[in-house]
C-alpha cells in the first residue's frame, strides 16, 4: 500500500481486493479509511454516501419532534458543541419528513443571523437520513421554564430571571 496518500482515499473495494486480498482486511480498511476523509459538516448542504462518517460525536438526546430527533453533538473537526436535528428518511413514499427538512433548511437559510432565530450551520443528506446543524444548544425551553418556574434547581435560573 505504499504511495497511497490521504487524498487518494477512499479506495474502492475492487482496488482493495487486488492489493490486500484477504476479505477481512479489505473490510477493515474499507471502513477505517473514512476516518481519514471526514468532510466538514458546516457546509451549506453536503451529501454523504453510505459508508462515509458524519463527523459528530453524540453527547445526548435533547428531544423529539414529529419528524426529527434533536441531539446535542460535538463537531469532531471543530471541537464545538451544537444541536443536531436528524430526520430519518422514510421508506414509505409521501412521508412529510423530507418536506419538513427542506422547509426548515430553506427557512433557516433565509432567516440566517437573526438575533432571535437559531443559527443554521449546515445540513447534510445520507442515504438513510437528513440532518441540520444548529447553534446554540439552548439552556432550556420556554415550556419547561413556565412549568417549573418555582423549581430552584433549574440550571441558570438566576441568569434567566
Amino acid at each position, binding site marked *: 500500500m505504499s504511495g497511497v496518500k490521504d487524498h487518494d482515499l477512499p479506495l474502492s473495494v475492487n482496488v482493495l481486493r487486488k492489493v490486500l486480498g484477504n476479505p477481512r482486511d479489505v473490510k477493515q480498511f474499507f471502513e477505517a479509511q473514512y476516518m481519514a476523509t471526514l468532510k466538514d459538516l458546516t457546509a451549506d448542504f453536503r451529501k454523504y454516501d453510505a459508508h462515509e462518517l458524519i463527523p459528530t460525536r453524540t453527547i445526548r438526546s435533547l428531544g423529539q419532534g414529529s419528524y426529527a430527533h434533536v441531539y446535542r453533538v460535538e463537531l469532531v473537526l471543530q471541537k464545538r458543541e451544537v444541536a443536531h436535528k436528524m430526520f430519518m428518511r422514510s421508506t414509505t413514499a409521501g412521508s412529510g419528513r423530507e418536506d419538513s427538512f427542506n422547509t426548515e433548511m430553506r427557512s433557516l437559510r433565509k432567516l440566517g443571523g437573526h*438575533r432571535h432565530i437559531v443559527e443554521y450551520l449546515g445540513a447534510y443528506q445520507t442515504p438513510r437520513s437528513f440532518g441540520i446543524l444548529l447553534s446554540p444548544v439552548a439552556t432550556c425551553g420556554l415550556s419547561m421554564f*413556565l412549568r417549573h418556574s418555582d423549581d430552584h434547581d433549574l440550571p441558570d435560573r438566576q441568569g434567566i430571571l
Partner: protein
Amino acid sequence: MPVSGYGIHSCTPQYVTMTEDNPYCTDTRPVRHKDIKPQNILIEAQESGTNILFTDFGIAVDFGDKTESSKGTNLPRTERYCAPEVANGGHRDTRSDFWSLGCVFLEIMTVLKGRSLDRLGEHNGNDHIYYVSTPQMMSWLKQLEDTQDAIASLVIPLISSMVSKKAKTRPRSQEGFNTLFGNTIKELELRTQLFCQSCIDDPQPDVKVLEEEPVIEEPTVATIQSKDVGGVQATLLHDSALVITVRDLETPVKEEEQDFSVSTSEPAMPSVDAERPRHSSFSLDPISSNRIQTYIVADAIPEMRDER
C-alpha cells in the same frame, strides 16, 4: 433590572422582545413560523444576559413563495396554540402567528403574576386548547390585571388584542405591533425594561406590511424565487406563461444553458392542457436589453419537477 411586583425581572422584556424583533413581519425575512409554542422557543443563558430563540421551522411558510396554499390542513401543528381560523381551515396569515404568540404571552404573564398554568387550564375548563375558550382567556386576563404594575398594565391589553377571535383586531406585522404597543410607550425607562437594547437602537420603523397570503382558489401571479444563480428570475404568470428574465447583461445566457433553480415548495399549478403544442419564443427586451424568454407552462413543469 428588577421590576417591582414581579419577583421576576428582566425576563418580561426578553419575551416581549420576540415580537418587537419579529422576523415574520419584515419584507426581508418573509417566513411565517406556523407552530409558535413554548416548546419551540428556547432560552439561552449567555454571560451578557438571556437570549430567546425561535426554533423548529419544519412547517414554516416561505412568503417568497406566494403560491403556498393558505388553507392546507395536513401539516402537524399544535392544537393548543393554533388560531381559530387555522383550526377551522379558514384563511390564515401572519395574524395566525400573532394569535399563537399571544397565547404564549398569556402563559408568561400568568407565571409572572404567580399563577400556575394548571390553574389557567382549570379556568379555561377544557383540554388546554385556547381557541375554544376565548371568553375564559379574556376573564383570566382581567384577573391578572394589576394597576400597581406598570408593565402588566401595558402588556395585558396587548395580549387581549393578540388573542382576539377576530383576526382583524390582531396585529399582523411589526408595524402593527408597534402601533398597538411599542410606540405608545414614551417613557424611556419602561422601554428599556420591555425591549432589549438592539430593538430600541434599531426599531426598524419603515418595515413594509406583508400582503396577505393569496388564497389558492384565485391564483394570480406566482413568483418563483430563483436560487442565487446570476440574476436569472422566473415568473409564473396565471396566463400559463413562464417568463424568465436574465439580468446579467455581460454574459447573456444561451437559451439551452439557462439554469433556473426553482424553489422547492409546491406551486399552485394551473391544469395543463396536454393537447396544447409546445411553444417557446425568444425575444430581446428593447428597453433593458435583457433577454426575456417565454415558455408555455407545459414546457416548464417537467423542468420544475426535475429541479425538485
